[in-house]
């Protein structure tokens, strides 16, 4: 105990109560272990990216046809990921898909189409089969969250994790604070699952509003940043993800519209997508975005979405389902005064996120092994912050795998958890709190604005060595300013922490992008000074870790091997049954 701090001892600490975090909590709760979930939101049933609902779920179901088997999908994976994928982890995830689907159905999620009583499966985004179930997922997260609450997890709400506790490459908890009450919490755990999502607010978009983003603007790469500082390895951080959005509103809805047969037109009225991919509008997201970028650069913009040719019943269905993925999209069209039934919808390229670059199963974030464990012992990761991801299904499946992996890890561990280094904890807290009311300090909004301009200009969809070096200079100069950031209230203290994490993630991104001297997956990583893919030298992962100077340092790792081969820790299989804490040795 310590005055002025709340201290909690638990078995599993989950950081981020979204899809992956909730699914990671479940196996530990089922094993009778104590679980604490630390979450920025207030209501577990709705928090995270999909609190408003979802409309598609990617899965193999083993329903009969050859395409619906794990083996078939796995065979196509190298091609789908342009050769950069951890096949070992992806294979585990894909094989577990049918089991986890049934498990989620058991929680009360109904994936079936009420009109037919069957699964409505669609082929989209360049996948080699109809792997997407289109469904009304308004309650998807609610059902999973309910299950976690029923399992009696302790949920710390409106609580932001700011620092991992790691000793000798072994994670044993985290420091967090509640941004409504100002309470600081030190949580000691036997294992930690990082499931805090992707990185957003890092580049500019059409509206110029930082929080108008396609992806969840309150996911700011906190897991990636905390883990990097704690010594964990990250990968695929050079790849960016952008999508096509109605101009002015960075909203989703593309998947539904494209799978129903909408076209893209340029200003000359040409349906140009086939010039970029033989699948036309059904190409991978990365290809769709790239084609539109290219058309804009060729001077063929504005680009429009055309749904006018679609049959009446498809349009009706579209209208019904449009709001499932983004509740406010119909209101946006209404207030704008356009209708996709009769009008062309002008599209823009969205801001970027670091997530999975429009490619399924090639996630950007923490490198994990087949049990979801990172290069730091006892530290697991899943969802949009992990090296294998794929929307809600990827998050759910790897989340569950990580939860099971954490149970095995905890059972194989004996001895006491290390004591908290209170001097260190107090220092971190004092540094964070110093931003409050700092006179003459730098507002976090201005700090973030500089990051976004820098990333858009030099680390975005057209990169060069010179531009990346310029960006790294600016981002390094901003690092120095972190100690001058100012906030006017507790809410602002949270934003200051987020801003720091965004900056670190963009520095990691620019460093990795500078290392990869080729172009891969089109505008996900386009080097204008190395415009072609270089399969000879770059069938590799760029692994980023903290260097001796505290800055990102990179290693290129053969993509034909599991990322875990490069981890410097004992694997679970090596240590069957007995693994003392470093402190207990």
């Amino acid at each position, binding site marked *: 105990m310590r005055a002025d701090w709340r201290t909690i001892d638990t078995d599993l600490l989950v950081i981020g109560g979204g899809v992956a975090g909730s699914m990671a909590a479940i196996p530990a709760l089922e094993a009778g272990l104590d679980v604490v979930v630390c979450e*920025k*939101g*207030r*209501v577990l049933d*709705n*928090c*995270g990216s999909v*609190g*408003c609902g979802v409309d598609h779920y990617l899965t193999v179901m083993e329903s009969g046809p050859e395409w619906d088997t794990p083996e078939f999908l796995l065979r196509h994976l190298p091609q789908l990921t342009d050769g950069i994928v951890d096949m070992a982890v992806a294979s585990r995830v894909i094989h577990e898909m049918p089991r986890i689907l049934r498990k989620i159905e058991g929680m009360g999620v109904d994936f079936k189409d009420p009109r037919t009583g069957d699964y409505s499966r669609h082929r989209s985004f360049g996948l080699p089969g109809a792997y997407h179930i289109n469904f009304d997922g308004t309650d998807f997260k609610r059902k999973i969250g309910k299950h976690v609450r029923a399992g009696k997890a302790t949920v710390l709400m*409106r609580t932001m994790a700011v620092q991992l506790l790691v000793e000798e490459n072994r994670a044993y908890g985290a420091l967090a604070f509640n*941004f*409504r009450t100002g309470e600081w919490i030190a949580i000691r755990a036997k294992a930690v699952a990082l499931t805090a999502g992707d990185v957003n607010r890092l*580049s*500019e*978009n*059409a*509206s*110029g*509003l*930082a*929080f*108008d*983003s396609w992806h*969840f*603007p*309150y996911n700011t790469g906190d897991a990636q940043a905390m883990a990097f500082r704690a010594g964990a390895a990250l990968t695929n951080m050079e790849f960016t993800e952008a999508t096509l959005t109605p*101009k*002015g*509103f960075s*909203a989703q809805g593309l998947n539904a519209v494209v799978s129903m047969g909408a076209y893209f037109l340029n200003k000359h009225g040409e349906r140009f997508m086939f010039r970029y991919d033989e699948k036309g509008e059904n190409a991978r997201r990365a290809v769709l975005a790239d084609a539109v*970028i290219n058309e*804009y*650069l060729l001077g063929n*913009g*504005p680009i429009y979405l055309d749904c006018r040719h679609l049959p009446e019943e498809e349009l009706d269905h579209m209208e019904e389902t449009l709001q499932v993925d*983004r*509740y*406010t999209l119909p*209101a*946006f069209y209404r*207030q*704008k005064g356009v209708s996709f039934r009769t009008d062309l919808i002008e599209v*823009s*390229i969205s*801001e970027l996120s670091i997530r999975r670059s429009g490619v399924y199963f090639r996630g950007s974030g923490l490198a994990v092994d087949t049990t979801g464990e990172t290069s730091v012992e006892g530290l697991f990761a899943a969802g949009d912050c992990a090296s294998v991801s794929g929307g809600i299904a990827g998050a759910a499946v790897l989340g569950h795998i990580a939860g099971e992996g954490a149970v095995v890890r905890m059972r194989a561990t004996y001895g006491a958890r290390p004591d908290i280094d209170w001097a260190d904890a107090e220092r971190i807290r004092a540094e964070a709190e110093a931003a409050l009311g700092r006179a003459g300090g730098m507002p976090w909004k201005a700090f973030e604005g500089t990051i976004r301009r820098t990333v*858009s*200009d*030099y680390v*975005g*969809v*057209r990169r*060069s060595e*010179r*531009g990346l070096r*310029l960006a790294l200079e600016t981002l390094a100069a901003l690092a120095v300013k972190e100690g001058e950031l100012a906030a006017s*209230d507790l*809410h602002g203290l*949270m*934003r200051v922490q987020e801003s720091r994490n965004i900056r670190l993630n963009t520095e990691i991104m620019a460093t990795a992008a500078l290392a990869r001297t080729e172009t891969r997956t089109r505008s996900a990583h386009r080097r*204008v000074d190395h415009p072609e893919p270089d399969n000879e030298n770059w069938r590799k992962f760029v692994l980023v870790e903290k260097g001796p100077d505290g800055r990102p340092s990179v290693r290129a790792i053969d993509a034909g091997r599991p990322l875990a081969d490069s981890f410097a820790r004992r694997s679970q299989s090596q240590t069957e049954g007995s693994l003392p804490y470093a402190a207990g040795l």
Partner: protein
Amino acid sequence: MLPVSDPSVHNPIQIDPELCIRCNLCDWICPGDIIYKEENNKQTMPVVAYPDECWYCGLCESTCPTDAITVVFPERMLRNQTDVVTLLGKVV
């Protein structure tokens, strides 16, 4: 003390005081910590404390039990004039 909002910033969340029953749900549900409603006080209205940090997700609107909330998009989103090419980077 509840935060106060800056009137010069577009307010995306309009709350009808006639309809609002001061139930706090919008405060609880918002993923961005945007709306503040004093607990256990049926007199005070929710405050849109950080309007420029709104995601325009509409979760507050869809959750409000009395339909007191309307999400209102600003002109810069509805009639956007940005040249998309300016988002596509500088080649140096």
